[in-house]
Every structure is written in structure tokens, then in C-alpha cells.
């Protein structure tokens, strides 16, 4: 996917600049892009290391496990067919908790483990189960308590109040999450009914 988009962007750009006749700007941009990418990485390096370190403390000290316990009652209704003591459910809570804390890199390993567990529970079928759909959809709508990277980025670009956007972010991601779950659950219910009808026949 990204292969086509990336090459598409380059082709369109070169084509456009030939038509518009600003080739000089384009070759300058090509050289500058390397430098600006590296300076972007340097800005990110400090923040990323600092928070990865602090989050490591959170996971080693049991802080994340504690949060996972708090969030598990909220997640139970979304996965009615999963046993709360199962490895799959435990991985899901850890994944959601890490996502809430903005720990993408911690969330991913738990998410992958959860998918594998659900795959086994679903009989290793190549069609996604209802739980898988709900889980992945939940992961694509990012609910995050503290968008720390975003805040740091806003600060480095001269925002007077880097975290003033936090409440709008919560509201907007909650809306997205609710819509995603509503669609996923509606389709799940429909297909459950279709299955049930098939059984009756």
C-alpha cells in the first residue's frame, strides 16, 4: 500500500514541477528534506527516550497491571464471549491500558499476542471473528489520556499552551471510538443473526 502511495507522491511531484516549471525548488527540496528529517528525528529522540524510560518504570513496577485491573470491567461487555481469566482477555486489557497511556510500542506486543490467542480460540479460521474485529477497530481509534508526544511537539513549535487541546482530543477520540464500536457491533449482531437463521434452516 505504502509502496504505491510513496511512489505516487514522487511521480506526481516531479510531473507537477515540470509542468509548473519550478525544477530548482524541487531539487533544493530534495537536498533539504534529508536535513529536516534528521532534525525532526533529533527533536523526537529526547522525548521518545524519556517517556520510554518512564513507561518502563510503570510496567516493571506493576503500575500498568494495576491499571489493567481497573479497566477490565469496562472491557468485559465488548468481548462477551471471552473468558475474563483467559490469556486473550488479559492481553487485551494490557493493550488497551498501554494505548490509553500513549505507549504504542508497549501496546503492540500485547495486541499481537491477543490476536494470536483469539485466533486459536476461534479455531484458526482465516475469517476474522467478532472479537477480532472489535479489538482491531478499537486499536485503530486511538483513545489516549495524555498525548505527550503531541504536547511536546506543540511546545517546540511555540504553542503558548501545548496541552490546551487535551479535552478536544478526548472528546473527538471518544466520538470516533463510539462510532467504530457501534458499526462493528451492529455488523457483528447482523452476522450472528444470519448464522442463527442458517442453523434453524
Amino acid at each position, binding site marked *: 500500500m505504502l509502496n504505491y502511495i510513496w511512489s505516487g507522491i514522487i511521480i506526481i511531484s516531479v510531473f507537477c514541477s515540470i509542468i509548473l516549471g519550478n525544477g530548482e525548488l524541487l531539487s533544493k527540496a530534495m537536498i533539504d528534506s534529508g536535513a529536516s528529517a534528521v532534525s525532526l528525528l533529533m527533536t523526537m529522540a529526547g522525548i521518545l527516550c524519556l517517556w520510554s524510560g518512564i513507561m518502563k518504570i510503570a510496567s516493571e513496577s506493576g503500575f500498568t497491571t494495576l491499571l489493567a485491573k481497573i479497566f477490565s470491567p469496562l472491557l468485559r461487555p465488548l468481548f462477551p464471549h471471552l473468558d475474563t481469566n483467559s490469556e486473550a482477555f488479559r492481553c487485551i486489557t494490557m493493550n488497551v491500558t498501554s494505548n490509553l497511556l500513549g505507549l504504542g510500542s508497549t501496546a503492540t506486543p500485547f495486541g499481537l499476542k491477543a*490476536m494470536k490467542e483469539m*485466533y486459536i480460540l476461534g479455531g484458526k479460521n482465516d475469517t476474522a471473528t467478532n472479537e477480532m474485529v472489535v479489538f482491531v477497530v478499537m486499536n485503530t481509534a486511538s483513545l489516549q489520556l495524555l498525548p505527550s508526544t503531541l504536547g511536546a511537539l506543540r511546545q517546540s513549535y511555540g504553542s503558548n499552551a501545548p496541552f490546551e487541546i487535551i479535552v478536544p482530543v478526548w472528546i473527538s477520540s471518544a466520538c*470516533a471510538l463510539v462510532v467504530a464500536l457501534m458499526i462493528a457491533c451492529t455488523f457483528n449482531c447482523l452476522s450472528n443473526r444470519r448464522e442463527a437463521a442458517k442453523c434453524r434452516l
Partner: protein
Amino acid sequence: MSLVMPVFACIIVVFGLFSKTSVFDVFLVGAREGLQTLLTIAPTIIGLVFAVELLKSSGAAEVICNAVEPAAALLGFPKEIVPMALLRPVSGSGSGALLISIFEDCGADSFAGRVASVLAGSSETTFYATAMYFGCVNVRNIRHTLFAALTADFTALVASIITVRLFFY
């Protein structure tokens, strides 16, 4: 509000002390992992910043934005965020680079800057996450996952414009 981040870090450190974790050693391990993550994403960022810079300087971005602008204006969203909204579900670092260029061009506290910030905070790289999670278990028929996820992304876009208007203007 500005105290949120330091206080949050402090709570975690204090919790770590009480649970007898050797906080600084663990911090170093985590920070090293952060550095590794940075190295992993570095090529992606360099490649995408390159593509985005080309798109901007060739004038292609302007052409595309002008084409989408009437529709965007109809729905009431700032035209500066159109490219970012289009790239968001596909590439996190690409849309991140666009977020930065919005900050540079309009300022972080401008209307476009705020909408872009809220959008960045409330949506995910849908295609990437979906491909990764289903890819790891060999599931081919993903049913309604993409439909639900992309509708959620669009909801986040609309909601970010509405909330920024409500909160700041």
C-alpha cells in the same frame, strides 16, 4: 494543565519506589528501547519527509488542496489540514511531517494548527494497524473492520473541527 506531564511522571516514579523497583536502572533500559524505536522509524521518516517535501515544493500539494478546497470549505474545515487528513489513515510519520509543516506555516495555536493537533491525537494509522494485526495471524477475510475503522477516522476529523470551534472560538 501544563503540570499534567511532570505530575504523571512523578506518580509513576513514586509508585516505582514504593514497589521497590530500581527506578533509574529500569528507566535506562526503557530509554534504550526508545532509542531503538527511533532507529527503527528513522528510515521511514526520512523517506516520507522526502516525499512530503517534494509534494510541497513542486506545487502539487497546492493543486490537490485547491481541488478539494470547495468540498472542504462546504464542510467548514481549513484547507491547510486537507493533505494531513488524507494521509492520516495511511502513514503516521507522513501525517506527522504534515502536522509539523502546518505548525511551521500557520503556528501551533492557529485554527488549522489546533484542528490538526486534535486530529493527530484522536486518530490512528488505520491501514498500518489493520495490516499488522491481521497479518500476524493469517486472517484474510477481515469483514467489516476497515469500513468501521475508516468511518471512525472520518468521525474524528469532523469531531476535531467541531470541538476546536466550540472550545476556542
